[in-house]
């Protein structure tokens, strides 16, 4: 029998094998890094697109839920991808094992690499204590060099994970027009809110503003109207007070969530610049049948009609002083009385005052003033006298509280907050008794104006 083991392979042969295994390792690791990058980018891109799309198309709470879920899923997926990619990395021995498996080399490469690493010397074939069959193994392996070329072991240079990446980019491009349109339009609202709204005070559902609302609301009106609004708020609060006490914590949490989601949504969708001021005109009379009979959720009048509202209101204001008591009460008077009574009990007011005002003055005319007019005439003008045409009207005919009034509320469109929810935040009630020395509001008798001064006064008001 011939030996054939006497000749030892040159060091270059072992080096060629190890070099080829190194090339396989580089290629496999390159694919692993591509997998990591492409997969992570794909996840980030698709999750960002979905979050942006949700920001411009969903309400705050839904955006918070959907966005949170998407972000959580994306984080978990990225962690999974990183962990998987980290495990897919191969060292030299693992690369040899991969080559053995794919080229069906039955562990030849892995054995050579392991022997080299164990001895930490490259020319192990030349050592005296080298395994006797190692030269044969090297020759045998080198004879199969064609079978473990890097191109045959791993033919791909680009990872297959590029397809999910390209898919995510394509999907993002598809969503981009929708997102851009949403950014231009701002965050979604339940319905378009007109800038000028005229509503009856009895029709108005009042509640305090949400703590998360950053709209600077300002109500300017006379003291009597403010009392009327407070009474109505107290009455509304009394109806739903019990439920709110039990769900107060949940409301706070929901409000906080809405606040956070709304801010985030505005940042993402650029909603800050889309806010519009709303002029809310309140009337406390039911004579405007069109507005009173309109359901609360009915569509609001169109813009042209709204533009005519102040003029119409002025016209009605000029015609109605004498007819105010004849206007029918649109709302159920009994319910109004009961609401008012409960409100009195809460606010500490005398029932007599309130009931007298409510029962006797419910037929009061509505009067509207624009915000500018309101600021010019002040809260004590009582309607008559502010207009130069009626500056010298008959004194003593007007009754305080029976006059129509208009308050202008500077408000912003709200897409977050408790408007769409069933529960609203109510601040704690503070009951402040009236001062003992405070006299009830009474109309001041109009004094007669000397004829010499009338021209000068009229000139001032006309200015």
């Amino acid at each position, binding site marked *: 029998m011939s*030996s054939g083991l006497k000749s030892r392979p040159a060091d270059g042969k072992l080096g060629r094998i190890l070099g080829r295994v190194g090339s396989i390792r580089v290629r496999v690791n390159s694919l692993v890094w591509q997998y990591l990058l492409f997969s992570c980018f794909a996840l980030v891109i698709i999750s960002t697109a979905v979050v942006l799309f949700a920001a411009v198309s969903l309400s705050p709470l839904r955006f918070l839920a959907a966005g949170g879920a998407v972000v959580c899923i994306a984080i978990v997926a990225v962690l999974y991808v990183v962990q998987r990619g980290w495990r897919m990395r191969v060292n030299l021995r693992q690369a040899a094992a991969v080559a053995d498996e794919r080229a069906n080399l*039955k562990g*030849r490469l*892995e054995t050579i690499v392991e*022997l080299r690493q*164990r001895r930490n010397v490259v020319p192990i074939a030349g050592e005296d204590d080298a395994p*006797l069959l190692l030269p044969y193994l090297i020759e045998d392996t080198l004879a199969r060099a064609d079978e473990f070329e890097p191109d045959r072991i791993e033919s791909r240079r680009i990872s297959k994970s590029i397809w999910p990446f390209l898919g995510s980019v394509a999907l993002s491009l598809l969503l981009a027009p929708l997102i851009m349109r949403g950014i231009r339009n701002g965050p979604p609202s339940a319905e378009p809110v007109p800038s000028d709204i005229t509503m009856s005070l009895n029709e108005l559902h009042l509640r305090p503003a949400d703590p998360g609302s950053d709209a600077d609301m300002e109500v300017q009106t006379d003291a009597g109207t403010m009392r009327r609004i407070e009474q109505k708020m107290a009455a509304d609060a009394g109806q739903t007070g019990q439920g709110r006490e039990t769900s107060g914590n949940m409301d706070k949490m929901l409000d906080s969530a809405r606040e956070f989601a709304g801010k985030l949504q505005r940042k993402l969708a650029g909603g800050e610049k889309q806010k519009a001021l709303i002029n809310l005109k309140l009337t406390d009379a039911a004579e405007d049948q069109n507005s009173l009979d309109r359901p609360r959720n009915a569509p609001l009048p169109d813009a042209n009609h709204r533009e005519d509202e102040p003029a119409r209101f002025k016209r009605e204001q000029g015609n109605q002083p004498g007819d105010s008591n004849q206007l029918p009460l649109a709302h159920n008077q009994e319910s109004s009385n009961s609401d008012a009574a409960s409100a009195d009990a809460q606010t500490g007011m005398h029932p007599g005052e309130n009931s007298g005002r409510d029962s006797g003055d419910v037929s009061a005319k509505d009067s509207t003033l624009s915000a500018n007019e309101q600021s010019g005439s002040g809260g004590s003008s009582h309607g008559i006298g502010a207009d130069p045409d009626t500056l010298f009207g008959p004194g003593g005919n007007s009754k305080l509280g029976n006059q129509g009034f208009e308050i202008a509320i500077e408000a912003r469109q709200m897409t977050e907050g408790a408007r769409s929810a069933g529960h609203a935040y109510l601040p704690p009630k503070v009951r402040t008794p009236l001062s003992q020395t405070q006299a009830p509001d009474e109309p001041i008798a109009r004094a007669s104006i000397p004829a010499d001064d009338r021209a000068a006064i009229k000139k001032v008001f006309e200015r």
Partner: protein
Amino acid sequence: MSDNALEMPTVGDFARVFRHVQAQIHKVIIGHEQAIEELLIAFFGGGHVLIEGVPGTGKTTLVKTLGLALNLSFNRVQFTVDLMPADITGTRVITTGEDGRREFTFQPGPVFCHVLLGDEINRATPKTQSALLEAMAELQVTAGGRTHQLKPPFFVMATLNPIEMEGTYPLPEAQLDRFLFKVSLAYPDEDQLVRIISATTGPEEAGVEPVFHADEAAAHIEALKRLVRNVIAAPAVEHYAARIVRATQPQNSRFVSSSPRSVHEDAVDRYVAFGSSPRGAQALILGAKVRALLDGRANVAREDIEQIAQSALAHRIMLNYAAHSDAVDATQVIDRVVKSVRAARAA
């Protein structure tokens, strides 16, 4: 490289001799291809074989043919209840010398040969069975206070009859563990049976040509066995074999130490009372080395170990009553173990 390497056959020589011997055996033995290959693997791996088969399946003929093909000395011992250890190992007898003086001299028993067939070894008493232990493990026999070396190669093939268990003595675990492989001989199928009929009932008997000359047979075989030992098993492959052996050991056994890298197989915990000993790992590697040489390789692959696992480990694990109750045998457990270790490696 040492001088022994000059006399060492090549990988190609080994495969050629192996196939030649295999072909000679198949001249006489019809079928049983896998059993014969495992028998030769164990022989060149330096181990002993326990052959289990029903009567008439050619156990004795197989062993006899192997001895003839390798041109090695062959002895056969029929184990019976009244067989004594000295009947196997030999004994001191009084002999008369040339000068007329009488003295005790050692009369070697049938164990002094190259290939020993212990037929129906489970019919002898444990005392007699254990007489083979020293010879199998250490290639020596102690009789009359003197130790006698056996000439290599020494190969023991013991047969077990799985039926007629009355009056038998099951081999102790220690003795079972000393057999490298346990080979099962099943009934031949119809085609094989027809060939057996044709070959054994005709006027001519099939002849076996020895592969080696009688003078150099032992040396050649020893050289081939050295070549087997020189096959390279990478550390990762050795770990693989060790992991398989450890996976056969039940977790709940107090003899098993915990290891974070160990593979747990539920079937082992449920059905195995005692797992394989370290000899099982040796058997795996030795058998895998022979398989690698047969494949023309100088290195052991994991596939070699998986192919040899059944023969090397099945007789080394002791099943519990649950296994007997559920009709689970050792081969099924080994299958599950190999699959679990393979899956753990892939993960």
